[in-house]
């Protein structure tokens, strides 16, 4: 049967990373931007797990890192969502184009 190797996983994770970056830079909706960031973090998780499994199976650093990334991502998302809710209350929109009180 087909078993996925390191390169397949790296391919996916890199793709995810750049999809995330692309989404972060091009999207207008704040929630979507947040989701793009989560995509980036998840691609990193994949990276860590893959490296740990295929390259350095005797060192568990990658696994630990992944757990912490998940936790931090959650905390970050919590704060971000709270802020976005607050932003929605004052701007009645979660579109970045409407958040333009400050300009050069």
């Amino acid at each position, binding site marked *: 049967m087909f078993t996925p190797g390191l390169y397949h996983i790296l391919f996916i994770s890199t793709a995810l990373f750049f999809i995330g970056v692309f989404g972060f830079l091009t999207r207008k909706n704040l929630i979507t931007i947040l989701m793009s960031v989560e995509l*980036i*973090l998840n691609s990193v998780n994949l*990276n860590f797990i893959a*490296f740990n499994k295929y*390259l350095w199976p005797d060192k568990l*650093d990658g696994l630990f890192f992944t757990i912490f990334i998940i936790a931090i991502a959650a905390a970050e998302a919590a*704060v971000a969502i*709270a*802020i976005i809710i607050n932003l929605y209350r004052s701007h009645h929109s979660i579109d970045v184009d409407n958040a333009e009180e400050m300009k*050069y």
Partner: protein
Amino acid sequence: MNEFLTLMKPELQITIIIFLLLFIKLSKGIKNDLLLLIIQNLLLLNFIAGFFFNAPGNLFDGMYQTNTLIAFQKSILNLGIYLISLLFTGWFRKTEHLPEFFILMLSALLGLDFLISSGNFLIFFLSLELATIPIAAMANFDLEKKISSEAAMKMILSSAFSSGILLFGISLIYGATGTINFEALPAQLDGSTLQILSFVFLITAFAFKLSIVPFHLWTADVYEGSPIAATSFLSVISKGAMAFVFISVLYRVFQPMHQVWYNMVMLLSIITMIIGNLFALRQQNIKRFLAFSSIAQVGFILVGITANSPEGISSVVYFILIYTVSNLTAFGVAAAISSQTGKEKIEDYKGLYQTNPLLSWVMALALFSLAGIPPTAGFFGKLFLLTAGASNANYGFILIAALNMIVSLYYYLRVIRSIFMDKNEQPIEKINIHPSTKFAFIICSAGIVLIGMLSWIYDYIQSLNP
């Protein structure tokens, strides 16, 4: 256990203060004035206690590292926090959620302390997030203001993005070397393409946090929108700690790739100085102005970082000590004015000297120090940064930096000019300054003058260098 207590002392102190505040919050409410007094004294104690029983050592298999220099760096941050608690008394007294603000700020400080002490990318990342997430919440503290939540949104999204990039870099380093330990990494680095790629990712993340051009775009908006205490924390303490970490990561971990990062940092430094200065030239809002000027200051810090020598570290630490005192003073004056009159434009400062001579002198001192004019400490700070940077004999680079000092002088003088020279029909009225703020101004002014003149401070920092 004993070792644990002594080595982790700075962090434990802060943790205790955080919990004390939490207890205070959970019990029956205390009046803001009294609470602020308690907090100020706690932070003073914290600052003083930071000088005792400092020993070098490792904890948790080198995940947590400390030495006397690191302890001193933490003391600088403690000093900054203490000054913040004094300087923005006017704002704090009006704040509805005072303990929360300090809990958040101290949590961020805790994160920064751990960040400085980190000996492993895991702790590094965790403490980095601990340091940034509360700042986003702090930025949103003026709940009713639109720009505040906008600032918080920009802060959290950009910091999340940058930590994503940082993590990607770390994961590549892990893949390339199999370790995330700072001690073990240098032996594994050979400058292969993958490592350089991952290093680029890492430096990008650092650039975000330090607001190095071209990753500075969030800085000005966040600074302007946040409450001024949060802004000052972000621009002084957070930035200072990030610089400490940046230098220690570059020197300790990426020493084998010295040539690679030297060129990168040099380029970043040049564009940061130039762009920061050019944008600062056209700012009208004092907070935005200080934001862009702090970007330019970061460019100078990078000049010192390129030295790749013990002098580089000491001059950066020394500069940040000075920068902390000077920039906080500038923010303190701006806060004192804006909390009473709500005026934040540079134009509004016209004729300030007629009504508030002392405040004007303090501001002038701070701005001169930021501009690097003798006899203020900023002169020595900048000079030593340039001297350290010049040890690579790259005089063109140093010349660019020195000329940028002139540009920066121009816009600092702009503020000085509106304070001292321009006439104004309706200058800002007499500002009532809270006694504790006055006290902070005295400390800061003394610091600005004396830190430079008393050479033993620099020598002390130099002697701490392991």
